[in-house]
């Protein structure tokens, strides 16, 4: 019973991810795209954690931690590149 509920939550989150991806494709400025990518990263962390609950595998949580780190690094790097014109 609870497994089907978790799968339904996963499907809802994936549909919302596609809505954010459409905003990232449409978005008029670069900052809109960057903000949509940021939300997609957060949603992916939530989806990975729910999937770890569906399959009863604990190692998906390590994947979620690393994905959160990389998503934050991506946002900071792209914002710094747009602000100063170079990464280093």
């Amino acid at each position, binding site marked *: 019973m609870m497994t089907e509920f978790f799968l339904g939550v996963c499907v809802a989150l994936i549909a919302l991810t596609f809505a954010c991806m459409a905003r990232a494709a449409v978005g008029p400025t670069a900052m809109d795209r960057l903000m949509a990518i940021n939300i997609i990263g957060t949603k992916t962390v939530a989806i990975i954690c729910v999937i770890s*609950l569906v399959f009863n595998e604990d190692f998906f949580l390590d994947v979620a931690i690393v994905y959160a780190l990389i998503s934050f690094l991506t946002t900071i790097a792209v*914002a710094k590149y747009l602000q100063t014109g170079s990464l280093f």
Partner: protein
Amino acid sequence: MKDIVVVILMVAGTFFFAMGTLGLWRFPDVFSRAHASTKCDTLGCGLILLSMVVRSGFSLASLKMLLIIGFIWLTNATAAHVIGNTALKQGYPMLKETRTWIYRGRGE
């Protein structure tokens, strides 16, 4: 009893994710979209991970989930601030009705 709490928290988290996505589509400029996206990050992801902490009880997995919650609450506020700061310094178009004269003379 525990399942009811899990279902309520997870539905609330999905609701906040949906509201954040709706705000990302409906708001007119970059700065108000940043307002919607931070709600989506903190409340949505926080409530969903909190429901999973309630479900798995006292274990190493719930400790990892609490670590993810703390990390996301730290980093997403920082990322939204960096995005807004970059948009302001690059001179991205603001909504015409924005009252920036209130804040003139403070800060700097």
